[in-house]
């Protein structure tokens, strides 16, 4: 797995780095004492942290397959009589499909807009020369340090004026704008590591900027684009702070708010709550695992850049 990962990234990147590393050999990475003891200790440590990483999920899954009585009595990780009833009830009774679609809509719109808008902007920052470029670039980066909580209230008031408070667009627009610093940072790095000769020769062939952007830079920066898509989609899917203070109509609720509403009911039914949590987590996990190798490479590019 790690080997496939390491071969993918730099192919289009004109050997941005680590060209000298022979594949599959990492002398410094392995304890010199390749004894059984050392390897057992390593195996145990790795397994221990895997258990720590998984622990809350295991109980989430476990509770989602328990019935009311069993979950109240505490008990064991393995359900005594596993039931699908809890998951089915949660899904049907609580309109989870609607919330699911709302979340999907907000997440997809946000992600697509982030990738389109900031890929274009980063191309300008990385490649094109125009007055004010450096200043604008710095401006976007400083925004990384503006706490979200400062702009939360003005956003709510502004959206009230614009009459989009409580709509899904009222979530998407601030989410997109809030993703700007990281997206610009990562994509500008990635675009400026693409050799300028490619652009020069395309220009000699008569290609305009939009075509150079679309046919040379976008394909070569694919790992970075996918990374940004994931880094946008995952937090958007889970977003809670702004969503909570802007959505009022249950028809517009996204999954986090639906989950919160379940939690605020007078008696917490942990099995349905965990079933709902599971429903919310599974799509992100699937998305992540299907795009994982690009993600790793994109982050790598970000760090090296």
């Amino acid at each position, binding site marked *: 797995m790690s080997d496939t990962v390491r071969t993918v990234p730099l192919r289009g990147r004109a050997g941005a780095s680590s060209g000298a*590393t022979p594949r599959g050999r990492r002398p410094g990475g392995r304890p010199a004492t390749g004894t059984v003891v050392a390897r057992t200790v390593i195996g145990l440590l790795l397994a221990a942290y895997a258990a720590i990483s998984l622990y809350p999920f295991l*109980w989430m899954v476990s509770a989602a397959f328990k019935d009311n009585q069993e979950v109240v009595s505490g008990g064991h990780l393995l359900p005594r009589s596993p039931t699908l009833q809890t998951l089915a009830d949660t899904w049907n009774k609580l309109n989870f499909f609607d919330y699911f679609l709302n979340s999907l809509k907000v997440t997809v719109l946000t992600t697509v807009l982030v990738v389109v808008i900031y890929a274009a902007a980063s191309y300008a920052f990385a490649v094109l020369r125009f007055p004010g470029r450096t200043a604008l670039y710095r401006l976007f980066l400083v925004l990384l340090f503006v706490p979200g*909580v400062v702009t939360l209230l003005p956003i709510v008031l502004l959206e009230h004026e614009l009459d989009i408070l409580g709509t899904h667009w009222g979530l998407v627009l601030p989410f997109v704008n809030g993703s*700007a610093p990281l997206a610009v940072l990562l994509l500008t790095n990635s675009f400026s590591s693409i050799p300028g000769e490619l652009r020069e020769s395309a220009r000699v062939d008569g290609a305009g900027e939009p075509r150079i952007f679309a046919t040379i830079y976008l394909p070569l920066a694919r790992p970075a684009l996918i990374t940004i898509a994931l880094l946008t989609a995952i937090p958007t899917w889970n977003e809670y702070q702004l969503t909570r203070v802007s959505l009022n109509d249950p028809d517009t609720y996204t999954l986090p708010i639906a989950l919160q509403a379940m939690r605020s009911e007078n008696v917490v039914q942990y099995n349905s709550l965990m079933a709902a949590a599971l429903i919310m987590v599974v799509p992100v996990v699937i998305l992540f695992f299907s795009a994982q190798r690009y993600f790793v490479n994109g982050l790598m590019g970000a760090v090296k850049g």
Partner: protein
Amino acid sequence: MSGETIASDARRPSEPGPSAGGGPRGTRRRPAAPERAERASRRARLREAAWGYAFVGPALVLFGVMGVYTIVYGFLLSFAEWNGFWPQWNWVGLDNYADLLWRSPVHAPAVREAGVNTLWVMIAVPLLTVAISFPLAVILNSARRMSGLLRSVYFLPYVTTGIAVYFAWQYILEPNGAINLLLRSVGLGSLEQPQGFLGNPDTALPTMIVVMVWSSVPVAMLLYLTGLQALDNSLLEAAQLDGAGWWRTQLSVVWPLLRPITAVIVLLNLRDSLQGFQVFLIMTNGGPGNSTNVLGLETYRLAFLSELAPTLGLASALGWLLFLAALVVAIVNQRALRRVG
């Protein structure tokens, strides 16, 4: 991400510029027709600039609507008193800042208490994250089998960070939840928390720190892992030829070489510890008492949970203090990095 990267990136784009833009044409310029060539290259430069603005345009428009307005508004509001319903702001100058920092008998102590909690988080989370993720990355990098699967498993906490997983944590931290059960079954029943780990004011903050570290280890580990895989192996081989053992190599060769990555990790975690509060809002809402109240959460409370009290200006002012603190942290981090680098 670190101040260092920011500075060098801002410089970088301008480097390829001259050679990519008007440069080559300039060198090719014939002395016979200097003016025409100059005019042509100026037109080319103008066209490039126009495309530049066109490409940045959408981002700027959105920033103009969502960003400039909200930031200016928030900044102005920090000098006023308002409760959200009064028809007008009541300008108070720097009073909000003074009230938060020392003057108000209500707000200053709350800010101080939240500040101390935030400080604990800012110390513990980056430190523990580095202390766990660096060794983890080193041994994961040395594992031959299953490393892909393990990396995915380790990454799960990041992927799912959010309300769903925080509820799962709440569930296992309950009085008769899984953590207490685990402690009892391994014979550590004395560490059990009968009110639950989040119900006891003494254990609530440390427990929250554990949850935060748990969710921040994945990215840190991945960053270290990419750093390890990009290391120049000849250096490590040289160290081993010189007779350095495995531990020695890790400590005196690998760790210093990965220091830039450590700086990035520390900066990201400091920023999140300083400003992030979603996990507190969801899991404890600052309680029990104020034992897990942090500055971000205090800001949120002042802005959204204080009913009709005129605390919106205070909330803005506290938010800007957090911004200042984040900048200071970033600059200190950059200085520290420069000195060792």
